[in-house]
């Protein structure tokens, strides 16, 4: 796994190297100075002893009244030699007889001693052929007693000292250095985490440069570069988001519908200016208030929003009204859609209000118009029909020649009435938006139709057979009754005297089928496509054109409103079959 916590080894090495370079010289320096001090200490100690010794000797000499010359010649110390030196530097007497009469190497020994009483120095002794302590004591105004002692013991002490250093101090120093490195390693482990993050970062957001290659050995620069890049990306994204928000705000402003969005706590997320105008101003708020219920007091609306937030299903409310002093009654359709995040959790709801005031008013006007027209036309028609009938009842008073004229008036009045009724019917069906969908029992419908049809055609023998495999369909009862009634009526209207109509129902998949078949004259192929057109006649030259020509058009419209299809299957002289296909749910 390339992204296990990487450790900044190069950094570690640098620090290790650095600390080593600092630590070791420092250690050496300290040891060196310490050693020097120790050595100086040893030497001073020795110097004090020698001085003591010299003073004792001097005292002995003075006390014993022994001449120094005699003493000098008689004494034979081991490992050291004494000298009596005069102020010119000449050795007058020495326990080492060879040196008698010789001059000292360094006249300072004598001069200093004569001045300060005692003087010592460490230098190489020619006689002992080794570093020695030369100590001089003034014994008279002109004479100095000098002792020379090799400092070999000192050497031994120093060796011992050095051994201690190597055997104790250096290993200790090494261990503490390693300890330091270990603790440093521990302390810098988190940087490994940061480096892993940097590598992950490069995969998630392509940089365009490979930091590993650019800063192979410099982990900190890698981190720095990554942060730079992240900062740059972030700033770019913020600008993008701002731009997107600007776009959305512009779009929202330009939409004519009123839009409001809320989150799951019913806090308003955003809205457009139309919404503000319609719903806020009327409440006297200058700005949008934070909670949904500030905008609406209508329980239905609030309940609908809450249901969408809870269940995540789209809700539609139609024909809502909001009245206020600012807005004379307006009608709205409301669609509320759930807002979801990429995982599908509900994050809020978006409500869009469609102003349907105009539509509703127009619809209302149309309905009123239809009602008025209907009423206005029916009135004169009633008179025409009624008085024609009265005339007909008084036929005997009228010239027989004029009877046919009367017939024609009556027939055409009937025709006009039928036409008018059908046109009105068609108009109503076309505009009717709300149908009541119920489960309809087909056999019941057929039963009631058969009853009526027989009264319409008292002269004909009509047999209606049933083949019901599908018992119920979903639809508007009155409209479906009208469809079947029209079809059966058509079957009877154009057929001869012995009429057989077979109504069958069946289902295929999720579609239901109703077929109305007759044994009538059939429809020629060239006309079948057009029979559903308004006022289309198969045989337009027929003298007695029956019906208004709207029956099938009405049927087609009703079926279309149910989401279904209708078509005719027919051959000339072999009957006609109308097939209706409807959705079952």
């Amino acid at each position, binding site marked *: 796994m390339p992204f296990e916590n990487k450790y900044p080894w190069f950094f570690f090495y640098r620090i290790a190297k650095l600390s080593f370079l600092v630590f070791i010289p420092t250690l050496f320096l300290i040891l060196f100075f310490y050693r020097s001090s120790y050595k100086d200490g040893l030497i001073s100690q020795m110097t004090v002893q020698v001085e003591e010794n010299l003073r004792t000797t001097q005292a002995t000499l003075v006390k014993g009244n022994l001449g120094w010359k005699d003493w000098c010649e008689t004494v034979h110390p081991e490992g050291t030699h004494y000298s009596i030196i005069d102020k010119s530097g000449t050795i007058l007497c020495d326990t080492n007889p060879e040196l008698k009469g010789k001059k000292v190497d360094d006249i300072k020994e004598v001069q200093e001693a004569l001045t300060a009483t005692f003087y010592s120095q460490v230098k190489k002794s020619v006689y002992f052929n080794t570093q020695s302590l030369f100590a001089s004591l003034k014994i008279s105004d002109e004479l100095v007693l000098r002792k020379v002692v090799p400092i070999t013991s000192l050497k031994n002490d120093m060796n011992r000292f050095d051994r201690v250093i190597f055997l104790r101090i250096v290993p200790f120093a090494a261990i503490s250095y390693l300890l330091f490195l270990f603790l440093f390693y521990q302390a810098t482990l988190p940087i490994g985490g940061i480096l892993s993050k940097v590598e992950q970062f490069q995969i998630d957001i392509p940089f365009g440069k490979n930091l590993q290659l650019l800063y192979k050995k410099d982990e900190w620069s890698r981190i720095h570069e990554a942060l730079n890049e992240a900062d740059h990306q972030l700033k770019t994204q913020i600008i993008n988001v701002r731009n997107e928000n600007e776009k959305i705000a512009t779009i929202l402003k330009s939409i004519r519908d009123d839009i409001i969005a809320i989150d799951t706590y019913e806090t308003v997320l955003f809205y457009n200016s139309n919404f503000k105008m319609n719903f806020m101003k009327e409440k006297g708020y200058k700005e949008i208030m934070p909670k949904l219920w500030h905008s609406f007091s209508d329980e239905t609306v609030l309940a609908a929003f809450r249901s969408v937030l809870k269940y995540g299903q789209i809700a539609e409310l139609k024909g809502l009204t909001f009245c206020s002093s600012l807005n004379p009654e307006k009608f709205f359709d409301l669609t509320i859609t759930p807002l979801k995040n990429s995982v599908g959790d509900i994050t809020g709801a978006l409500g869009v209000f469609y102003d349907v005031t105009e539509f509703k008013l127009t619809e209302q006007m149309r309905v009123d118009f239809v*009602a008025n027209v*209907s*009423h206005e036309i*029916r*009135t004169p*028609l*009633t*008179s*025409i*029909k*009624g*008085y024609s*009938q*009265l005339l007909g*009842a008084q036929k005997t008073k009228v010239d027989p020649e004029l009877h046919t004229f009367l017939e024609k008036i009556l027939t055409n*009045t009937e025709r006009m*009435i039928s036409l008018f*009724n059908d046109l*009105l019917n068609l108009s*109503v069906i076309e505009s009717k938006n709300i149908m009541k969908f*119920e*489960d309809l*029992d087909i*056999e*019941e419908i057929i*039963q*009631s139709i058969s*009853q*009526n049809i027989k009264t319409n055609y008292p002269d004909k023998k009509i047999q209606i057979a049933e083949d019901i495999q599908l018992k119920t369909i979903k639809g508007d*009862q*009155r409209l479906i*009754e*009208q469809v079947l*009634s029209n079809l059966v009526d058509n079957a009877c209207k154009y057929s001869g005297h012995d009429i057989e109509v077979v109504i069958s129902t069946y289902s295929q998949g999720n579609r239901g089928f109703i077929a109305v078949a007759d044994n009538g004259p059939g429809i020629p192929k060239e006309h079948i496509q057009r029979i559903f057109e308004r006022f289309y006649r198969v045989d337009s030259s027929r003298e007695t054109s029956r019906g208004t020509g709207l029956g099938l058009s009405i049927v087609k419209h009703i079926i279309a409103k149910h989401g279904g299809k209708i078509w005719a299957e027919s051959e000339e002289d072999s009957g006609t079959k109308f097939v209706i296909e409807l959705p079952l749910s």
Partner: protein
Amino acid sequence: MKNAQILVIEDEQDIRDLISFQLKSEGHTVLAVESADKAVSIIERGEKIDLFIIDWMLPGSMNGLDFTKKLKNHKMYKDLPVIMITALTQADNIVAGLDAGADDYITKPFDLNVLQARVRVQLRGNSVAKTADSDLLDFGLLKIETTKCRVFIQDSEITLTSTEFKILLLLAQKPGHVYTREQFINNIQGDNIFVTGRTIDTHIAGLRKKLGEAANMIETIRGIGYRFKDAI
């Protein structure tokens, strides 16, 4: 019934004259007025009326529906038949009129023969079927014993459920009266019977099956309701 006194309320003069002429030629007496207000004065006079023919859309403060409601609240006139004339063919309007108290309706433009037949039926009431035996209704093909709840088709008894019987009785007691589903529901409820509009249709379908030849005595008025025809 011959020579009934019929009150006609219709604001269009031509149609008013038309109806009056027709009714008079059948031998009835006609009181024809052009507004509900005028009709109210007649009522208040306590005139004997056998049948009301009322146009639904009337001018003035009172329309046909209001007048009919007034009639139904009037001690003297509440049981008298009302035929509604309407230009509004929408089923909702007709059902509303029937539920307000009209027994039957006729739409403009109407056929005079149809009007004549309806008037006849309403004036006849159930006088044809009533027999000396106060609880037997005899329609020839169909006989109903009202208290014993027995029904006979061509003198052989048929078995009906209690709901079917109630429906049949309701219809047969007022031949020519158009019953809306609402009226059925209101009259049939009670005694463990619970019906809705859809179930009425189912019950009537079942009733018709059992009535056999007499099935056609129950007429379906599409989208409105049912009516009993005492003569096939």
